[in-house]
């Protein structure tokens, strides 16, 4: 039994951390955001060519590395720690797996290969105004022409291709749509979190390639599974951010002196930091278990019973979202006045924490989703 990363996985994470600290240091983050130039395409190219990250979990038939959810979690934790504004989550975690799972006929083989190599970026256009990503869409497709509006398309402003959910003859289905095709209007959405892009997409008779699902696979179930796994990856990203927030807070509490001593000497600050440490260990335990279980479910050779992702995912989402939110809040608070400034990066973590907690449902909604799984609805009172 090993409830920890292997030495190889730890080394992998360290390699990524070293790379990001050199090529995309935290100190340069605000400048990119202020210049409205968030995406460093040279960085993305080097991450693709030197670290081969975009295809990390894609099957080797597409030029990917065939790794699983645990390795993905290692990458996401480092990206969450660094807040590097690249579309890794959107392209490699949301879009690429969705495309692979939804295309049963291989019609998008070349696009998948390009996404896996990093030579193209993808975005998932599934949510609509008033409809969550996992809801049946209203966007319609007739004879390969799509009409509708998509919102919260993560990093949709830099994507080359979209995977779009739409109704075909009233049935949910997926389409591959080129970003520069006619009838595709991409408008950047101004976001609370400036480290990630988002777009609203208007589709007006836009041409798309329909993806016929694999035999026996139902499109909304495919999407649900991809989103569940994305939640686990997001949890890893949240954890990385929380860890960095704690580091910043402890560094400050150790060096900042008031009343003749480091402020970390005061018990109230000790306890705020200790609570964040506690929350991080809880969140890490949950996220690692879910990542391992997600892979174990896919492996028929172990006799580990299939993990109940329906309960695990909302649990992990709740624990990791609240951990990051609280870590970021305490970090800003412990920094005092400086924590409230634009110049200190703490607000970027706070904004990422707030936004990612809202993604695909709030932590409270996650608890309700968990309640629906564990408590049969509508039980009547019985005299005991």
């Amino acid at each position: 039994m090993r409830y920890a990363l292997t030495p190889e996985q730890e080394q992998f994470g360290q390699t990524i951390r070293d790379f990001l600290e050199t090529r995309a240091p935290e100190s340069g983050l605000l400048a990119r955001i202020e210049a409205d130039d968030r995406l460093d395409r040279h960085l993305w190219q080097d991450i693709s060519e030197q670290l081969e990250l975009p295809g990390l979990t894609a099957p080797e038939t597409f030029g990917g590395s065939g790794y699983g959810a645990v390795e993905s979690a290692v990458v996401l934790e480092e990206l969450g720690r660094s807040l590097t504004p690249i579309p890794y989550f959107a392209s490699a975690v949301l879009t690429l797996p969705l495309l692979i799972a939804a295309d049963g006929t291989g019609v998008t083989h070349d696009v998948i290969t390009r996404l896996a190599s990093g030579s193209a970026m993808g975005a998932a256009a599934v949510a609509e105004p008033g409809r969550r990503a996992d809801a049946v869409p209203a966007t319609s497709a007739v004879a390969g022409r799509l009409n509708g509006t998509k919102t919260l398309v993560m990093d949709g402003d830099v994507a080359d291709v979209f995977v779009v959910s739409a109704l075909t003859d009233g049935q949910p289905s997926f389409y591959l749509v080129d970003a520069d095709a006619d009838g595709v209007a991409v408008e950047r959405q101004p976001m609370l979190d400036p480290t990630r892009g988002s777009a609203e997409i208007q589709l007006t008779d836009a041409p798309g390639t329909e993806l016929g699902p694999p035999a026996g696979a139902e499109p909304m179930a495919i999407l649900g599974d991809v989103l569940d796994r994305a939640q686990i990856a997001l949890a890893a990203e949240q954890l990385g951010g929380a860890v960095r927030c704690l580091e910043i807070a402890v560094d400050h509490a150790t060096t900042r002196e008031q009343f003749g001593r480091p402020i970390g000497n005061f018990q109230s600050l000790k306890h705020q930091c200790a609570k964040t440490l506690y929350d991080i260990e809880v969140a890490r335990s949950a996220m690692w278990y879910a990542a391992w279980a997600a892979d174990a479910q896919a492996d028929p050779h172990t006799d580990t019973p299939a993990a109940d992702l329906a309960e695990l995912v909302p649990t992990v989402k709740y624990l990791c979202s609240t951990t990051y939110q609280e870590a970021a809040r305490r970090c800003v608070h412990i920094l005092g006045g400086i924590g409230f400034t634009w110049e200190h990066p703490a607000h970027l973590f706070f904004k990422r924490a707030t936004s990612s907690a809202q993604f695909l449902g709030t932590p409270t909604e996650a608890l309700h989703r968990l309640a629906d799984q564990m408590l049969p609805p509508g039980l009547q009172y019985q005299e005991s």
Partner: protein
Amino acid sequence: MDISYPADSADYRDRIRRFLRDHLPAGWSGIGALSDSQYHDFLPVWRATLYENELLAPAWPREHGGGGLSPIDRVVLAEEFAHAGVPAGTPNDEFGIDMVGSLLLEHGTEDQKAHFLPRILSGEHIWCQGFSEPGAGSDLAAVQTHATLHESGYILNGQKVWTSDGMAANQIFVLARTDTQARKHKGLTFFLVPIDQPGVELRPIPMMTGHRDFCETFFTDAVADPAHIIGQPGDGWAMAMALLGYERGETAVALPLRYQADLDRLIELARSRGKLDDPDIRRRLAWCKTQVQTMRWLGLRSVSQWLAGENDEAQGSIFKLCWSQYQVAEGAIAMDILGEEGMITRGRPPRMPYYCDEPEAPNSTASWQGSHLIAQGGVTYAGTTEIQYNILAERILGLPR
């Protein structure tokens, strides 16, 4: 990352399940289902069964009458006992087998092992703990009970408090000061003291729950044998810290299973009171589930580290913070479910003032009132919440003391 159990542990798990099937009464569903008189009849019989089957002290080496089990088998044993809702021994066995026994095995002389270990197993010696004092709780090193060496042995004078299960005990281990000139943590000595002597008197302290399990212990010229000191005079603090570190690895897997069973009872309580459609209750029960899952995962991480021979200093504090704070919140949810009914005491209160009520304990207002009260103690004993956060902040994060 592989959080599954080793394949060969499945054989041992099957053996233990067979053992439980063969030795538990027909129709057994959990110890909480026993009435008080059935419970008092069952415990000594069960202890004797464990003793005969070398399952009473699973961690002790076989040469001393223990099970000599590997760490993973100890974990599997603890899990199966928790699933079956059976105890691993009597309440005093935690002090005798786990604490004194483990300390003797690591630091005792051969004569001490030969004298004490068989008596712990047979039940001839029944142990309790003499650490805390009225003036030394969180600050344990401030103990004032002192021992001076005379011809007849060490003479102890002082007072201990919160002596758990003291009235059932006939032996007490005592942290006492033998050198009043030395600095606080030095000059302490770890004594093994018989209770059955004129100079030792225990009186129960009634707790807010009505339990009378905790005692105050008075030493008035009590006598301790110099041969029954563990370690050397002056080693007392190191011995006490070693002993407190023998927290059963098994607790890490067994306790989450108890709290899972308790959550099932809480859900049934909500269902039976027509509260399962209340969105706020549903949300809070889901929160409970996240916490019980967390306990399980924290426990498994502890086991994983233990099996790898690693020692993560933070895990003990984190685990304690988790279950103790959870039980406080759980008690409040139960009272919200019960509403005015929760003002009336009906049914059987928890038999022990620790942790949640027993598996299969009948749902009653007395059970949940009791658990709610007991939860207030859980955040205090075995290191208060504030002490645990101080430990995390100072020892792990390095914030200045």
